[in-house]
């Protein structure tokens, strides 16, 4: 696992945060990434986890944009009450 340490914090004596804590947080982050991006069982560098995290968040933002657009089209073409009933029904199932 990469342990590249920026010079900036090596001199900080006030910090109580351990490498172990950081590694723990990084692996927790790895755990919320989809398996397709990083296998949870793999030991990956923190840098890789961060990179995949950024990519994943960007793709999620794009999905929100895309779904907003498609929902906008759907709402325009659908009669109100039937849409409401269908949605509520499916979410309660």
């Amino acid at each position, binding site marked *: 696992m990469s342990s590249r340490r920026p010079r900036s*914090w090596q001199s900080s004596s006030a910090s109580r945060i351990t490498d172990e*804590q950081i590694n723990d947080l990084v692996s927790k982050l790895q755990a*919320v990434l989809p398996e397709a991006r990083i296998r949870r069982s793999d030991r990956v560098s923190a*840098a890789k986890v961060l990179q995949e995290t950024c990519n994943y968040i960007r793709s999620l933002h794009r999905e929100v944009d895309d779904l*907003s657009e498609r*929902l906008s089209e759907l709402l325009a073409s659908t009669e*109100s009450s039937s849409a409401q009933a269908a949605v509520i029904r499916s979410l309660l199932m």
Partner: protein
Amino acid sequence: MESKSYTTGSRDNANRNLEGSKTLMASHFLRALFRIQQTSTTRSSFAGRRRRIRRAAYASMAYSAGTRRAWSRALLRKLRSRARLRFPRRLSRAARPQRGDTDQAQVLRKLVPGGPGMDYCKLLEETADYIRCLTTQVRLMQTVMDSISS
């Protein structure tokens, strides 16, 4: 017919909180969605409706997490100030170099609401929660889409 509700799938006790916030997210988003549909006229633009839906998506995320997380507090502030919801945005505050900080962390800070104000550890923590919430919201929107179009 597959009846997979987007709320199923969480098993252990630690996820009780998540279940509650998922319900909150759904009800908020649905109400906003139908309000948008009812107040949209034939004159209102497609782009305007799409913007409102997108805004409703981030609003329901923020309200479901409430004030418990730094990212949701930052999102709520943005929503209330009626500011444009943009990711990434230019760093408004220079972040102090932190332990374990890398260029990649700086990139991440631009993608997570409230990121620029967080130290490295906080950023990692908040990001994990933000992703969980984002994926839930995306699944919610997909479910809504599927049920309206079927």
